[in-house]
């Protein structure tokens, strides 16, 4: 098997160009889907039989919680590829993921807290789900802090990649925490092998929103990775020629 496409993809000038042409597609598609899902979720979807209109915060909470874990897995895989194949672009991609993932995690925690106060009767509890999601936020922040503490980018790449790999264990723990231990947080409604425990009329906008968030991630990571490439390659010849 020929690996030329792979090595071509990993070359900074090539990746910089591809990401530049992909970003607007991701951006506009994500904006369109998120607007559609917002309208569908807030207006068209029916109110819940128990929670009334309060359940609609789910359309922000569940997609951001999903994305917080998805982003971490992408970051850990990129870090692992960077370590094994010594690909700088993979390390750059992992670095580009971290602030995006941290934002999704914060959004999931904040919206969950806002929902929890009226529905559960508390802003926060130390149950397994909430605690492991908070740990995810600290992993992202720790990863970013570790990167920032090195002057040499290569050492920063390697040290932070190990942290990213160690932390990936937390992702299945977050997901299965509601099944393994008794928690205040309810078990999964959608990501299980059984039929979803959420009515189809409410599920469609949720899927649209998740798709919108995925595309947003594509947009944000393309833009951030381009910035990361510019910063790392600021002395390279191809950039001087381009400028």
């Amino acid at each position, binding site marked *: 098997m020929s690996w030329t496409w792979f090595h071509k993809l990993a070359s900074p000038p090539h990746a910089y160009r591809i990401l530049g042409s992909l970003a607007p597609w991701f951006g506009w598609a994500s904006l369109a889907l998120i607007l559609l899902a917002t309208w569908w979720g807030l207006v068209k979807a029916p109110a*819940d*039989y128990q929670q009334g209109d309060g359940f609609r915060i789910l359309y922000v909470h569940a997609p951001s919680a999903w994305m917080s874990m998805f982003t971490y897995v992408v970051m850990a895989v990129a870090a692992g590829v960077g370590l094994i194949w010594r690909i700088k672009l993979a390390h750059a991609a992992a670095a580009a993921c971290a602030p995006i993932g941290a934002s999704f995690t914060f959004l999931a925690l904040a919206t969950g807290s806002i929902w929890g106060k009226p529905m559960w009767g508390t802003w926060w509890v130390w149950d397994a789900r909430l605690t492991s999601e908070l740990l995810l936020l600290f992993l992202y922040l720790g990863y970013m802090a570790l990167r920032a503490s090195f002057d040499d980018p290569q050492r920063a790449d390697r040290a932070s990649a190990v942290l990213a790999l160690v932390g990936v264990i937390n992702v299945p723990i977050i997901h299965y925490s509601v099944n393994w231990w008794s928690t205040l947080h309810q078990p999964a409604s959608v990501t299980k092998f059984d039929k979803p425990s*959420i009515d189809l009329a409410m599920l469609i906008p949720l899927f649209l929103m998740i798709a919108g968030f995925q595309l947003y991630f594509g947009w944000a990571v393309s833009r951030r990775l381009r910035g990361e490439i510019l910063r790392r390659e600021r002395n390279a010849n191809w950039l001087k020629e381009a400028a």
Partner: protein
Amino acid sequence: MTPRQKRMVTVVAIVAGVGIATTFALQAFNQNLLYYYSPTQVHAGEAPASRSIRVGGLVENGSLARKPGSMEVTFVLTDYAQKVPVSYTGVLPDLFREGQGVIARGRMDGDRFVAEEVLAKHDENYMPPEVADSLKPHLDAANSTAGST
């Protein structure tokens, strides 16, 4: 082994090692990770009596009673096997209702559980009211048979 394969083994070993260590650690702390005890566990004496604990279960249908002229409510928590009577003084959360899961924090006082805090536990079901209404006869039937056994 090429250097690349060595690095590959290292990466796999890091993830596997941390995974195994975490599994053992979580196994060891399993009891402490439980957010609440069920009424059955309370009856079996698994919950410590000396300190504040949480008990989770369903509010038994028809058991909710308010003391006139006060904030005090009493209800019965059940897991369809055992029951724990609870008394609580304070504001109940929105989702608190009979047949719904709740978690009460407090301590046992004889046979009665005196709660300092009551949280509603939401289940994973989301549906519009019409769907819930059409399901209700089935659910009630299921609850009454489960409750009587």
